[in-house]
């Protein structure tokens, strides 16, 4: 049995996950995380890095315990190379590299975006899906083309999660982020309340959020609308743009499967909208469980395992803040 430990530290989450293969079956043995809570001041890289460094030993220990393995059983250590916040990436890098050196096993640098895509493919059993990757910093519509993942469409300014987080903070929601927006939006949706029309900017398969953000900030300052109504309208607008771009990409790339991955993929309304769209386009829609869509170590371990088995371990293992999904060759 091959066992790989994966360390994730690209943004607000420190994760350690363990994945093992026995014959044909791959199993996620553990997936522990510790997330820095969102605050009204947003995320400060230095504080995130401190958090990761401090909680790493406990998260690793818990992960080993849950998986029922000891450090001596580990065949390789994978870590999240990027994209991400520099301060945070370095904590994961040093932790993983030191561990790999002391155990005498290879260190495998894993592309964070590829990890999100692959672990969701693993869970949904999708073979060649269109991938909608949505998180704090990322909003991309991706499809596999030969040995690479190709970005068909993406945000040309902010990531959708950041966009929602910023507005969540401006409205002093609890929690002050996208989750706060989701909670308020759900209340208004439940009441069957009215929608306020907002700027809707989509160009082909690409999206823009800055115009929408400016308008929303004006409306928040204007205090004419209730917070619930604003949150509802913000969610409906942003997700409709995203679903429309995805629908266009699905038709353009002629894919028959659709998956949504990344932190924002946990949003149930977004899942519902994508599911409805997929049904109209006669495509199969799938989404992995939440613990694999938030940032986590198991997805890093999983791609580490694939890299180990397919002999594609990059020598250049330094963290890269701006690593894109289409930069890396995929050999499986």
């Amino acid at each position: 049995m091959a066992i790989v430990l994966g360390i994730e530290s690209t943004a607000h989450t420190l994760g350690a996950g363990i994945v093992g293969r026995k014959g044909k079956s791959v199993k996620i043995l553990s997936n522990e995380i510790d997330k820095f809570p969102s605050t009204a001041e947003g995320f400060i890289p230095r504080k995130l890095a401190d958090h990761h460094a401090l909680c790493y030993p406990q998260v690793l220990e818990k992960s080993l315990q849950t998986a029922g393995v000891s450090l001596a059983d580990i065949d390789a250590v994978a870590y999240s190379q990027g994209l991400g916040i520099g301060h945070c990436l370095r904590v994961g890098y040093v932790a993983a590299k030191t561990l790999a050196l002391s155990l005498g096993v290879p260190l495998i640098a894993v592309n964070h975006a590829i990890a999100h895509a692959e672990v969701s493919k693993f869970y949904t059993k999708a073979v060649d899906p269109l991938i909608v990757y949505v998180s704090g910093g990322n909003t991309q519509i991706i499809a596999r083309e030969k040995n690479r993942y190709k970005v068909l469409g993406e945000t040309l300014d902010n990531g959708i999660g950041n966009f929602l987080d910023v507005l969540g903070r401006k409205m002093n929601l609890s929690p002050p982020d996208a989750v706060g927006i989701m909670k308020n939006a759900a209340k208004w949706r439940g009441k069957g309340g009215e929608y306020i029309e907002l700027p809707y900017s989509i160009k082909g398969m690409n999206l823009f959020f800055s115009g929408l953000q400016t308008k929303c900030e004006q409306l928040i300052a204007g205090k004419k609308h209730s917070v619930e109504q604003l949150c509802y309208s913000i969610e409906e607008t942003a997700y409709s743009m995203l679903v429309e771009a995805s629908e266009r990409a699905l038709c353009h790339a002629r894919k028959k499967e659709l998956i949504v991955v990344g932190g924002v993929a946990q949003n149930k309304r977004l899942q519902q909208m994508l599911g409805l769209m997929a049904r109209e386009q006669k495509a199969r829609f799938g989404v992995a469980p939440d613990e694999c869509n938030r940032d986590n170590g198991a997805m890093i371990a999983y791609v580490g395992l694939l890299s180990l088995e397919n002999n594609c371990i990059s020598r250049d293992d330094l963290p890269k803040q701006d690593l894109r999904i289409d930069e890396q060759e995929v050999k499986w």
Partner: protein
Amino acid sequence: MKMKKSTRAIGKEVGKGAEAVLSLQVFSGKKAVCKHRMKKEYRCAALDESIRARRTRNEGKVMREAQSNGVNTPLMLGVDEGGKKIFFTMINGVVLEDKKTVSKKEIQECGVQLGKLHQAGIAHGDFTTSNLMSDGKNVFVIDFGLSEFTKKTEDQATDFLLFYKSVSEEKFKDFLFGYGKIAGERQTKLVLDKMRKILSRGRNA
């Protein structure tokens, strides 16, 4: 969005895109293609209605303006705003995305057509090989659903960007050659520089 040569019956679906269904209909006694923007289940009703009405109205206006400026498009026959339908003539051709080999001349012609569109003050908004058709002789621009009346370099560069992403580097050069024939070298360079700027300010580009 496929439209094939056909003698199929009226009412028959001849193509389906992401946001609309194309079917054969009769308009003012003539055979026509009807583009119907269907309701989208996933969008909330108020937003859906507003988007479909706006795009149908806008598409009619843009197609008329493009035609009068010599751009190859299907001939616009009429708009039914309430029904979210637009009627135009059929083109017996294949979309470039579906063609096995696209000739150099065809790619240059894409540039020529976009050059004319931009000169007419129109940015297409979804200028990919899925929205360009060839009948063997001419290249036609279709689907003006996201088009806008604008002469901003930024919007023109977005058209460049979409085309750039849908073809190879080599083909993009042929496209630029065609565009240059209409817009001139200086203007082409201006839009191209802007496209590179947009690419570079994309996340982690």
